[in-house]
């Protein structure tokens, strides 16, 4: 009997346990391998991306400049112009993909992502307001974070009706999204054109003209939120068993949910405040990660970040070089992400 159950069960992952004093980690070697492959791929892609442009540079020279041993001739182009842009794309893509992973897990609905349910729109609204009234980018991530949290709370409260149904949450989110978008349009129409043009450029979503300051902010955000999210993935898997089960397992359900929501909002707010609302990365990459590496866990969470970074970088390369004119990267991510979403929607079962 036991043997037959074992035979029917899926192949158990090859887990290794790592103990460091009081802390112990279970490590899935396959996921670790995938992370390594994704990291190597991202690095190769980044090097190649930095060779492209109106001033082509050989890969060897790019790598040498990045490592700080290049000639002055290449150093300016690589270190001042191309490297910040490449790093911004990778970091922002990672942040966006992670926020999608958190929200999809949180509401237990694979069709949810922060750009559909109004989180990004709330962040955009506050960020545009900040840019227009204060005319500075200082503390912009904080403003975007406040906007994202307020939008998330609004969606949650308006969805609440003795419980949160996934479908109702999507519809309420679409409504909140529309309201925030209307308010943003209103701000853009209201303020003088000189102030607005910066905000409009920002709302198209682009990693164009990224600076080292942007990279530092994105990097700091990721350094704080990636470990936090990875640790919380364990709690999230318990939460996904349903509120009652989670509670009977001893989990403080509402507190876990709130923490996860704050982390998700933070992830999306940091990315959005620097690169603007780039669509469909948050939606698409968690799907791809789950498809390749299995259900979301701490390790898969890190893998999602790698994939997000590689994807946004690739999309930016396409946007920048595939056509005679360079496009904002958001156009490319929507062009790829939207059909994928529609395909999933078309294939999805009767439950939605």
């Amino acid at each position, binding site marked *: 009997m036991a043997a037959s159950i074992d035979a029917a069960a899926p192949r158990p992952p090859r887990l290794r346990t790592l103990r460091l004093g009081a802390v112990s980690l279970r490590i899935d070697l396959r996921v670790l391998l995938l992370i390594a492959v994704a990291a190597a791929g991202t690095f190769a892609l980044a090097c190649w991306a930095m060779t492209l442009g109106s001033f082509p540079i050989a890969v060897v020279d790019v790598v040498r400049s990045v490592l700080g041993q290049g000639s002055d001739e290449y150093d300016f182009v690589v270190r001042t112009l191309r490297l910040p842009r490449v790093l911004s794309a990778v970091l922002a893509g990672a942040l966006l993909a992670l926020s999608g992973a958190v929200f999809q897990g949180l509401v237990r609905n694979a*069709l949810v992502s922060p*750009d*559909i349910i109004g989180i990004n729109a709330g962040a955009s609204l506050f960020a545009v307001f900040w840019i227009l009234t204060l005319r500075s980018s200082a503390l912009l991530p904080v403003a975007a974070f406040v906007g994202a949290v307020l939008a998330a709370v609004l969606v949650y409260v*308006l*969805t609440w*009706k003795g419980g949160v*149904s996934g*479908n*109702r949450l*999507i*519809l*309420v989110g*679409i*409504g*909140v*999204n*529309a*309201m925030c*978008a*209307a*308010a943003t*349009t*209103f701000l853009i*129409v*209201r303020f003088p054109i000189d102030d607005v043009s910066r905000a409009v450029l920002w709302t*198209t979503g682009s990693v164009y003209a990224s600076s080292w300051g942007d990279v530092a902010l994105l990097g700091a955000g990721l350094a704080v939120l990636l470990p936090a999210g990875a640790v919380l993935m364990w709690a999230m898997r318990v939460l996904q068993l349903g509120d009652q089960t989670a509670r009977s397992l001893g989990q403080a359900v509402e507190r876990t949910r709130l923490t996860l929501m704050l982390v998700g909002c933070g992830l999306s707010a940091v990315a959005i405040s620097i690169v603007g609302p780039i*669509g*469909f990365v948050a939606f698409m990459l968690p799907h791809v990660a789950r498809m390749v590496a299995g259900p979301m866990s701490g390790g898969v969470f890190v893998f999602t970040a790698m994939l997000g970074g590689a994807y946004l970088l690739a999309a930016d390369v396409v946007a920048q070089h595939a056509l005679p*004119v360079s*496009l*904002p990267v*958001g*156009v490319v991510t*929507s*062009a790829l992400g*939207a*059909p994928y*979403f*529609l395909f999933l*929607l*078309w*294939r*999805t*079962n*009767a*439950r*939605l």
Partner: protein
Amino acid sequence: MSAEVVQRPLPRLRLRWSRGAGLFLCALGALAVCVLSLRIGSLDVSTADSLAAIFDYDAGSYEQTVVRSLRVPRTLIGVAVGAALAVAGGTMQAATRNPLAGPSILGVSAGASFAIVTAIYFGQLTEPMQYVWFAFAGGLATSALVYGIGTAGAGGASPVKLALAGVIVSALLTSWTSALLLLDRETLDAVRFWSAGSLAGRDLQVLWTALPFLIVGTTGALLMSHQLNVLSLGDDAARALGMHTGRVRGVAAVLVVLMTGAAVAAAGPIGFVGLAVPHIVRVVVGPDYRWVLPYSVFVGVMLLLGADILGRILMRPSEIQVGIVTAAVGAPFLIWIARQRRVADV
């Protein structure tokens, strides 16, 4: 028992009478909003002057010139577009049996915008009057795509699937539209005002081009209201009653595209009127489309012109585009509908 049967027709008669009176009141209300729309703006005009501008025009009067050259076109476009969008929304909701259906949710506006911008970009469009045809094509293609994706798959149609498909297709088309606009400043300049969704500064010529379609579409939908009633019983019941459901749906779809395509061409993308108005009306008159659609005509006019007037007075002397006001007023409606039990559980 028998007394009850005898008494039954009485309340229904009274209901019909009161619905008729209500319709009359709605018409009066719409008329009053029209007059307000002539009067209110950065320059306030008296009722006498604004009516004189239409019936007894004195070219020497500044107020009357303002009314005649600016506010009359604006109000006329508002009336035509408001009525058409509201009726189109009601028709869509009946034909798709989906409370969330509406021109903006199904992506008709985004599709029309994309078609127009593409046509301008490739140099096919010079006159705003030609917008209408591209708006039709874009609106038709997009709504077909959204409806196709929303109804395909194992579960068939559901409000959530339809809404999601609409939102995603709209997002895709909007991002392509903005890419085209970024590539080409001239196109941006040509459609900048159109794409904001506003009744102000429109050419009456565009309205005259769009008007026949608006009238045909709206009249057709009103004449179809009985069929829409049957259709909203569900496909099985409608077929059992002898209705060719596919044919009726097809006619309804053509009418909806006529109405929304022409409305978008005339006033730009204006959201949520088509979604919200039929729901407001249903609260008052119940689910009978023979009443819902005529009421929608007047309530649509009131809502759109009311939103336009609100946009004029909130930020005097400048204005807020009516598309922004309708989204701010209409989006809460979407949330309200989503909180209704029957939608969320579908």
